[in-house]
C-alpha cells in the first residue's frame, strides 16, 4: 500500500559532494555475516557502474548502504553462498537481512512507493 512519505518531503535534495559512501567491505565474515549485520547491503562487482546506480539511489534517499564488493573470480562462489545457485546477476540489494532483488526490482519498488516503508521497517531510515 502506498503511503505519503513526509520525511522525504522535508529532506533537502542531497548534493553528491555531501554524500560519500562508506568504504566497501570485503570478506569480513563472508557475505552472509555482512548482510545480517547491516540493514542495507549492496552486493556488486568491483567497479560495476550498476552497483554505483544502486548505491546512489539509496544514498539519495538518505540511506547509508554497506557496499560489499565481489572480485570477478569470486562471483560464482559468492552467488552460491548467498542464493544457493551460481547463476545470479549482480548487483543485488539486501534490506534488513533479506534479499530485495536486483536493480530492476529496486527501481520498481522505488517507483511504486514501497521502498521507503521497507527501509524504515528495517531501521535504515528514520523520520
Amino acid at each position: 500500500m502506498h503511503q505519503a512519505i513526509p520525511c522525504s518531503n522535508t529532506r533537502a535534495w542531497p548534493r553528491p559532494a555531501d554524500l560519500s559512501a562508506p568504504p566497501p567491505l570485503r570478506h569480513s565474515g563472508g557475505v552472509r555475516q555482512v548482510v545480517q549485520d547491516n540493514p542495507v547491503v549492496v552486493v556488486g562487482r568491483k567497479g560495476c557502474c550498476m552497483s554505483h546506480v544502486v548505491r546512489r539511489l539509496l544514498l539519495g534517499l538518505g540511506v547509508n548502504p554497506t557496499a560489499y564488493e565481489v572480485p570477478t573470480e569470486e562471483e560464482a562462489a559468492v552467488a552460491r553462498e548467498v542464493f544457493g545457485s551460481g547463476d545470479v546477476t549482480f548487483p543485488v540489494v539486501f534490506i534488513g537481512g533479506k534479499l530485495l532483488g536486483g536493480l530492476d526490482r529496486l527501481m520498481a519498488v522505488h517507483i511504486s512507493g514501497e521502498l521507503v516503508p521497507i527501509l524504515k521497517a528495517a531501521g535504515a531510515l528514520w523520520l
Partner: protein
Amino acid sequence: MMELYSGYLEDPFNHLKPLCPNNMTSASTQFASSIRIGGMYDRENQITSVWNDSFQVDDSQATSPSMGDVKLDNTLDDVPNELLGSSKGYEHEASKPPEKVLRRLAQNREAARKSRLRKKAYIQQLESSRIKLAQLEQELNHARQQGVYIGGHLGESALGLTKAIIPGIAAFEIEYTHWVEEQNRQTRELRAAIQAQVSDIELHMLVESGMNHYENLFRIKAIAAKSDVFYIMSGIWRTSAERFFLWMGGFRPSELLKILVPQLEPLTEHQATQVNDLKRSSQQAEHALSQGMEKLQETLSEALTMGQLAGPDVIVNNYMGQMANALGKLETLVSFVNQGDHLRQAALQQMYKILTTRQTARGLLVLGDYFQRLRALSSLWVARPREPS
C-alpha cells in the same frame, strides 16, 4: 573439332577476351578449354593443364591431359606449341620410364583438379557477394521509401547511412515507423472517444491498447539496443525536436509527468500527492542512473588511458588488454538503455494505478498529441525558410 565458346569470356586473372575461331591467341585458347573443362568432359577435353599455366604450376612444360587415355585432336593446327607440346611431349615421354610419366600425369591431374576447384570457389564467392549487394540495396531503398530519416545524417556523419543497413537496425527503423503510425491512429481514436463521451468500458479498451503499445516500443528498443546500443542512445531514430529532450535513449519520465499533470486536472488530493511522489521518485531514479552513466564514462576513460606513461613495451602489451577491458565496459550501455526504458514503463504503470480510466485515457491522449506535435515541429524546422547568407 574443338568447340569454342562464342561470345566473351570473363576471366578473373586476365581481361575479357573475345573468342572466335580465327582469333585465337594462346591465352584465349587456354581459357576456352578451361571453361569447357570446368563443365563437361568430352572427347575434345584435352587441355586441362592450360588452367594450371596461368597459375604457374611447377610443371612449366604443358604436359599431357589429365585423362589418361584421351585422344589428341590432330586438327588443332592453330593451337600454339606449348599446348601441342602435349603431343610432342608424348613422343618424348614415350621414351622415358613409365613411372615418371605416370607420376607426371598424376601430378598434372591433381594440379588441374585444384585449379578447377579454386575457380569454382572464386565464382561462388562472386555470386554470393552479388546477391548480398542486391539485398543491401533493396533494404536501403525500402528504408528510404518508408521516409526514414537517413539522408539528413549524411551531413553529420557517413555512419548515419551505415546504420540504416545494419540488419537489426534496418528492421527497427521499419518497425518504429509503423509504431509511430499506429500511435497517431490511437491518438485520433482516443480523441474521438473522449469527445464522444463513450462509456468507461470502451475507454478501458483503448487505454489497454495504449499501454500495450508503449510496451511494444520498449520491446523493440531492447532488441535494437542489442544490435547497436549507440544507435538507440543517440536518438537518431527520433526527430530532431524529440532528440532535444533525449535522456538515456528516450524521454525523461519526470519531464513527461510535468507535462501531463496540468492536463489531468481535476485530481483528488490523494491522487495529487501520489503523482507528486511519483514525480519525485522518478527524479531520484533518473539522477541515480545519470550518475551511473558518469561513472561509466570515468571508468571507460581510465581503462583507455591507464599506463600511458609506461615504456613502449608495456604499452604494446597492455593495448589489447585495455581494449578488451574497455569493450566490456561499453556493454554496460545496453543495461543503461534497458534501465531507462524500465523506469519509463514503471512510471507509466504507476500512473495507471493512480488514475481513473477516464483520466488515463486523457493522459495517453495528451502524451500522444505531445509527441505528434514535436514531430511536426521537427518537420517544420527542417523545412523552414533560411535567410541567404
